[in-house]
C-alpha cells in the first residue's frame, strides 16, 4: 500500500508507525510488531481498569468534538439486560479531512484491536464500521481484512483463545455529510434517512438499534491499543495537560508539502506549517488558515502562532476539529471561500431543522449575490446576523458548522466583502443606511 505523501522526520509516530511498512495491513505484520498484546493484557483487567487507563491518557475524541473518550465509555450503563454495540465513525466527510482512510488502509488491525478493547470495557458483542460510500476501495480492502481476521480467529468466537466473542462488520454509507454526525449515522445504520436524533438519550444509553452504544472515530479507536501498551500516563505526557497524545493532522492548501502527519498535541501551528509542511508555496505570504475542517472558525495569519491543542484553539476562538487544516495564501479570495463553504453546507443540510435548512439556503443566496457583483452593504451585515441567529438552534451541529466559519470570515475579512459591494454600480447609498 503506497504512501500518498512522504513522512516528515519531525513527526511523532504512535499510531502511524506501521505506515509504509511492507504488508502493514496484514495480520502477521501486526502480530510481529506488538499487535494484540494490549487486547490480551486487558482480558485480565476489569472494565473499570480499562476505562481508568483511557481516562488517564486524557485521550479526547478525534472526530471533531474532542469529548474525553474514557468518560464517554463510562456512560454506558453497566447492569442492564440486552446487547451493547460498538459503532466506528469512518464517514470522514468534514472538508479538509483525509486521515481515517490512511489508518484503515495501512493499519486496520490497530483499529480492530482498539474496538475489541472498547468492547471488553463496556461489554459489547457486536460492532459496525460505518464507512462513507465514496471510499468503496477502502470498504473492499477492509472487508478482506475482516475475512482474514475471522479466518485466523481474531474476530468471531473465542478471539485469540481468550474466550472473548465479538462480531464486526463494515457498513457502507451512500453519500451524506450529515451521516458523520453520530445520531444521524445511527439512523442511517438502521436503514433510514440520515437525520439527527434529539438527545438525551445519548448513544451510550440508546444508540444503534436502541441499545447502549459506544460510538467513536476511527482515529480514536486506533489510539487505544498504544495507550494500553504504553500506559495512560505515557500517552498523556506526549501532549499537553488535558490534551493527551498525538493526532493526525491533514495539511492542505497553499503549502509546499501538504500531507497527513502525526504530531503531538500542543505543537505550535506555525512550526507545523513551516517545518513539517515546508512553508508557504511560491514564496507567498499566508493570509489565513482553517485549523480543523471547514466547520471551524478561520484564523488570520497573525493568529496562527498558537499551540495545536483543544484548549488553546478554544481560547483562540476556533477548534481543532477533525484535524483538517487548510492554509491560504495572500491571493486567496475570502469572499469566494465563504461562498464555497456555504454551498457545501447548503447541499449537505439534511433539512430536518428549519434554521439550518433555510439559513444555509439564504446565506448561499446572499453570498452569491455579493460574489456576482449584485450585493449591497446590508447583505454583508445580514450574512453575519443570519449566521449568528442559527447558532445553537438545531438538533445537530451542522447549523453551527455552517454559521461559525461564515461569522468569522465576515468579521475578519470584511473589507474584501465591502470591495465586492463597491464594485456594484447599483448598490445605492440609501441601501447602505438601512437598518
Amino acid at each position, binding site marked *: 500500500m503506497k504512501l*500518498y*505523501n512522504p513522512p516528515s522526520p519531525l513527526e511523532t509516530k504512535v499510531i502511524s508507525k506501521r505506515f509504509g511498512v511492507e504488508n502493514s495491513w496484514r495480520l502477521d505484520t501486526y502480530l510481529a510488531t506488538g499487535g494484540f498484546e494490549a487486547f490480551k493484557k486487558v482480558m485480565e483487567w476489569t472494565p473499570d481498569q480499562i476505562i481508568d487507563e483511557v481516562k488517564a491518557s486524557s485521550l479526547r475524541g478525534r472526530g471533531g468534538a474532542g469529548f474525553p473518550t474514557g468518560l464517554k465509555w463510562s456512560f454506558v450503563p453497566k447492569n442492564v439486560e440486552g*446487547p451493547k454495540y460498538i459503532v466506528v465513525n469512518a464517514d*470522514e*466527510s*468534514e*472538508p*479538509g*479531512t*483525509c486521515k*481515517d*482512510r490512511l489508518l484503515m488502509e495501512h493499519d486496520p488491525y490497530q483499529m480492530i484491536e482498539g474496538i475489541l478493547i472498547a468492547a471488553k470495557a463496556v461489554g459489547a458483542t457486536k460492532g*459496525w464500521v460505518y464507512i*462513507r*460510500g*465514496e*471510499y*468503496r*476501495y477502502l470498504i473492499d480492502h477492509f472487508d478482506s481484512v475482516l475475512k482474514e481476521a475471522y479466518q485466523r480467529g481474531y474476530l468471531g468466537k473465542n478471539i485469540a483463545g481468550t474466550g472473548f466473542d465479538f462480531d464486526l*462488520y463494515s*457498513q*457502507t*454509507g*451512500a*453519500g*451524506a*455529510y450529515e451521516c458523520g454526525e453520530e445520531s444521524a449515522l445511527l439512523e*442511517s*445504520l*438502521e*436503514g*433510514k*434517512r*440520515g437525520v439527527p436524533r434529539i438527545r438525551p438519550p445519548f448513544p451510550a444509553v440508546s444508540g444503534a*438499534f436502541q*441499545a447502549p452504544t459506544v460510538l467513536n472515530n476511527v482515529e480514536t479507536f486506533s489510539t487505544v491499543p498504544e495507550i494500553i501498551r504504553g500506559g495512560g500516563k505515557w500517552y498523556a505526557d506526549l501532549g499537553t495537560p488535558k490534551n493527551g497524545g498525538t493526532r493526525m493532522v*491533514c*495539511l*492542505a*492548501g*497553499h503549502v509546499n508539502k*501538504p*500531507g*497527513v502527519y502525526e504530531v503531538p498535541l500542543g505543537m505550535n501551528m506555525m512550526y507545523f506549517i513551516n517545518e513539517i509542511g515546508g512553508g508557504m508555496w511560491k514564496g507567498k505570504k499566508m493570509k489565513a488558515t*482553517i485549523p480543523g475542517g*471547514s466547520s471551524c472558525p478561520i484564523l488570520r495569519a497573525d493568529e496562527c502562532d498558537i499551540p495545536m491543542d483543544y484548549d488553546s484553539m478554544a481560547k483562540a476562538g476556533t477548534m481543532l476539529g477533525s484535524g*483538517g487544516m*487548510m492554509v*491560504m495564501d495572500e491571493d*486567496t479570495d475570502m469572499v*469566494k*471561500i465563504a461562498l*464555497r*463553504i456555504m454551498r*457545501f453546507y447548503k*447541499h*449537505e443540510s*439534511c433539512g430536518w431543522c428549519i434554521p439550518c435548512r433555510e439559513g444555509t439556503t439564504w446565506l448561499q443566496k446572499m453570498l452569491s449575490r455579493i460574489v456576482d457583483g449584485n450585493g449591497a452593504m446590508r447583505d454583508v451585515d445580514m450574512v453575519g446576523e443570519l449566521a449568528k441567529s442559527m447558532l445553537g438552534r438545531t438538533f445537530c451541529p451542522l447549523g453551527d458548522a455552517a454559521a461559525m466559519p461564515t461569522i468569522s470570515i465576515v468579521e475578519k475579512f470584511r473589507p474584501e466583502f465591502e470591495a465586492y459591494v463597491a464594485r456594484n454600480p447599483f448598490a445605492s447609498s440609501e441601501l447602505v443606511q438601512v437598518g
Partner: protein
Amino acid sequence: MTFSPELEARFADLLTHYPPGRQRGALIPMLMYAQDEVGAVTPDLMAELAKRLDISVLQVDEVVGYYSMLHKKPQGKYHIQICTNVACMLRGGAELYEHACKKLGVGHKQTQASGKFSLEEVECIGACSWAPAIQVNYDFHHEVTVSQLDQVLEGLQ
C-alpha cells in the same frame, strides 16, 4: 427481479449483520451494491428490496431521495467526479471542473448522449492533502493537473 449469485450471496451475508427483526439496516448497503449491478435504482429494484426487507416502497424511496450516491437514472460508463470543495479549490479543482465540462461537453450531473462519460461536481471526497482530487467511478486520482485529467479521460475506452 433476479441478481447475480455473487450479489445474492452478499445480500444473504448482509442480512445476518443486524439484530433480529432489524434487517432494514441492510437497506442502504443493498441499494449501493445493487445499483452497481443494475446501473441505477429502478422502480423494480426499489420494489424488490422493499419486499425482501418487509418495508414499504415509500420507505425505500425516501432513503433513495436522501443519499447523493443513489441515483434513479443511469450514469455514464465512466462517472467523472471532480471535487471543488475548499482544499481542492485552493489547488485548482474549479479549473479542472471547468475544463472537464468543455472537454466532455456536459455539465453537472449530465451524461453524454453516447453514454460513455457523465460528470459531477462533488463535495469533499477525502483527499484534501493530495488535492485537487477526482474520482472515476470508485477510483481516486490525486494531485491531478489539467493535462493529467486529459490523459485519464483519453485513456478510458
